[in-house]
């Protein structure tokens, strides 16, 4: 057993997963009018390198599609209902005209899926899941997918949730109430932060566009001036560089802060589901416990369910603090990174303006008297 445990510990530390894109064309249709439709399925390639002796080989390479991830996630949730499984990226993105084959979309999804696998591999319990290992090592996932509970069990869970929400829980443990409240609040706040960030990006983009237009008016004016031409071009290129810096800043926000926030928006939903499942487990136990009185069931079953409740609660407790810690770490790093980028952005912009301002602004003090003196020289 000791050896087994040691190996388990080792495997937690020795997953190295690399991820790249893969494009497979499934179908090519040519219809009557000669129009070609290509059905493409995107999959991702994962390379697992491990030093754990549990695996037969030290290197595995597999191709997985988004659907495969959905399967893995549901398996993990079924087996470990009160553990917090890192969220998957969304199936569809409603906002905007996002083309499913759009480069950015694929890249974002790829990164999120990679993060998902990495998080699972770091989790002390989930990383030992049989399904996880199968996912990373088996070339064909299809035979494994047929096993395990399917649609019906998911239906069952939904029914139970509904029944429990009607009945309510008998003994409410305060610690889970507190958790629930936190989950609600956190969900609200993180959604708001996400929305505000999206809005800021939108406004920054519009600002950036106006800056481009603004700089071009300086260049246009410079064309019809002699002495003022250089300073005007100077300001124009200054404004142009401001626009570029703003673009970089927006890009950074989109690549660092937005994905992090978005993941935790999805996390909030995961947490809600975890709380729901925990409640179901407790409700099931309570129902059977009651039934015990009327001898509709036996003590053994009730004890099993009681154990189950105990396990579920402990699992959640353990994972809860783990989740809180990683949430803080993730969001802190994303926010700090954005803050640092902000400082960098403003420093760059203000240094550009300062550098040019003296040469630029002083010629504006050219006296307009030259106009009237010129006219006087015409001897009018």
């Amino acid at each position: 057993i000791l050896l087994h445990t040691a190996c388990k510990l080792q495997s937690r530390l020795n997953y190295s997963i690399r991820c790249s894109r893969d494009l497979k064309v499934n179908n090519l249709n040519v219809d009557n009018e000669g129009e070609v439709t290509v059905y493409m399925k995107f999959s991702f390639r994962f390379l697992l390198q491990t030093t754990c002796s549990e695996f037969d080989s030290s290197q595995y390479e597999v191709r997985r599609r988004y659907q495969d991830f959905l399967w893995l996630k549901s398996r993990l949730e079924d087996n470990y209902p009160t553990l917090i499984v890192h969220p998957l990226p969304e199936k569809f993105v409603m906002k905007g005209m996002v083309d499913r084959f759009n480069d950015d979309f694929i890249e974002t999804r790829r990164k999120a899926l990679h993060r998902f696998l990495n998080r699972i591999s770091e989790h002390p319990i989930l990383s030992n899941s049989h399904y996880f290992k199968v996912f990373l090592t088996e070339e064909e996932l299809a035979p494994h997918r047929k096993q395990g509970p399917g649609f019906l069990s998911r239906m069952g869970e939904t029914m139970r949730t509904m029944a429990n929400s009607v009945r309510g829980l008998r003994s409410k443990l305060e610690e889970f109430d507190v958790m629930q409240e936190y989950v609600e609040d956190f969900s609200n706040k993180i959604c708001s932060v996400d929305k505000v960030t999206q809005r800021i990006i939108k406004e920054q983009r519009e600002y950036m566009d106006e800056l481009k237009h603004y700089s071009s008016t300086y260049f246009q004016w410079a064309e019809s001036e002699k002495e003022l031409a250089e300073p005007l071009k100077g300001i124009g290129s200054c404004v142009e560089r401001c626009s570029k810096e703003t673009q970089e800043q927006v890009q950074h926000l989109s690549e660092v802060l937005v994905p992090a926030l978005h993941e935790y928006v999805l996390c909030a939903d995961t947490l809600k589901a975890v709380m729901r499942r925990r409640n179901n487990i407790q409700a099931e136990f309570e129902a059977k416990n009651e039934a015990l009185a009327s001898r509709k069931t036996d003590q053994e079953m009730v004890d099993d369910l009681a154990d189950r409740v105990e396990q579920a609660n402990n699992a959640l407790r353990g994972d809860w603090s783990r989740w809180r810690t990683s949430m803080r770490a993730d969001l802190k790093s994303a926010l700090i990174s954005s803050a640092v980028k902000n400082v960098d952005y403003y420093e760059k912009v203000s240094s550009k303006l300062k550098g040019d301002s003296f040469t630029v602004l002083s010629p504006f003090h050219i006296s307009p008297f030259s106009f009237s003196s010129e006219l006087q020289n015409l001897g009018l």
Partner: protein
Amino acid sequence: MAEDSKEDSVASNVDSDQQTPDGSLNNSVLADGSCLLRRMEICVAEAEKRSGKNAVSMQETFTVYLVETRPIDATAEGRSPPPDSLWRRYSEFELLRNYLIIAYPYIVVPPLPEKRAEFVWHKLSADNMDPDFVERRRIGLENFLFRVASHPVLSNDEILYHFLTKEHGWKEMVYETGFQAKADSRLRALSATFRVRSPHKRLVEMKHYSDGLQSHTAQLLRARTRVADRLYAVYKVHGNYGRVFSEWSAIEKEMGDGLQSAGHHMDAYATSIDDILEEEEHYADQLKEYLFYAEALRAVCRKHELSQFELEMASLDLISKKQQREELATGVCHTNINLKQYAMLPKACK
């Protein structure tokens, strides 16, 4: 601008009898060629709100500006007498400028600050009573007086001098000059543009230049306004961060302090934009000066065109009158000039 003019007004050797008791300008000063600003410190010190009845006996609120003057030699001698001062409204500045434009049509008269706030970005008030607007206008009026008073020709104008020194009765004095009658109609000026036969090359260049300058500065001002609008939006949305971070900090233990100070920072950031954009208004004002100077330049060109046109018409008239006189003198009678030309042809052919 103000700095340049101030440097000009260095205390120099001035005649002690510059200001005669009745306040009229001394001829010796005119001969000097020195300008008013060399002899007199001028500033627009303050602005105040007043209420009163206007021309149609309705109650109105308006702003008056304190114009202070002090002879320079008084300060040079170490004395510091209090300045003379009077209050002037914007409309009186306008009247002064209109007078100068008509009285000196060949001079590009310095512009006044805007009558109404134009090129306003979204949140900036277009209210003439807004303190920031009033302050910027005060600076603009001061610059106007500096420029006029340091102009070699304009500064010696009597009406200008009385504007600075005579609070009551100045308006009547201006009207008495009858300058309004000399104003040209825009229609005549416009027709002159098309009918001038030999336009002055330099003037045409200047006209094109001022048109270009006007359009470029107007374009620039509009673009700047749009940029200001967008920047304002960016800053204000960060204010939303402030609210959310503060609320979020309430539910977190370890991150609470960090989130709260982030929230405060965001609030401060969002409010900082007002001052930033107000500063930028001063820059926009300088651009507007170029715009208005271009307009003034254009006005001078127009006046010149009109004068040229009138000169050409008068010359033609003179030629035709001379011809008529000749005809009368020689006894030859013709119905019109054109026929005479045709009549000459057969003679030439003979």
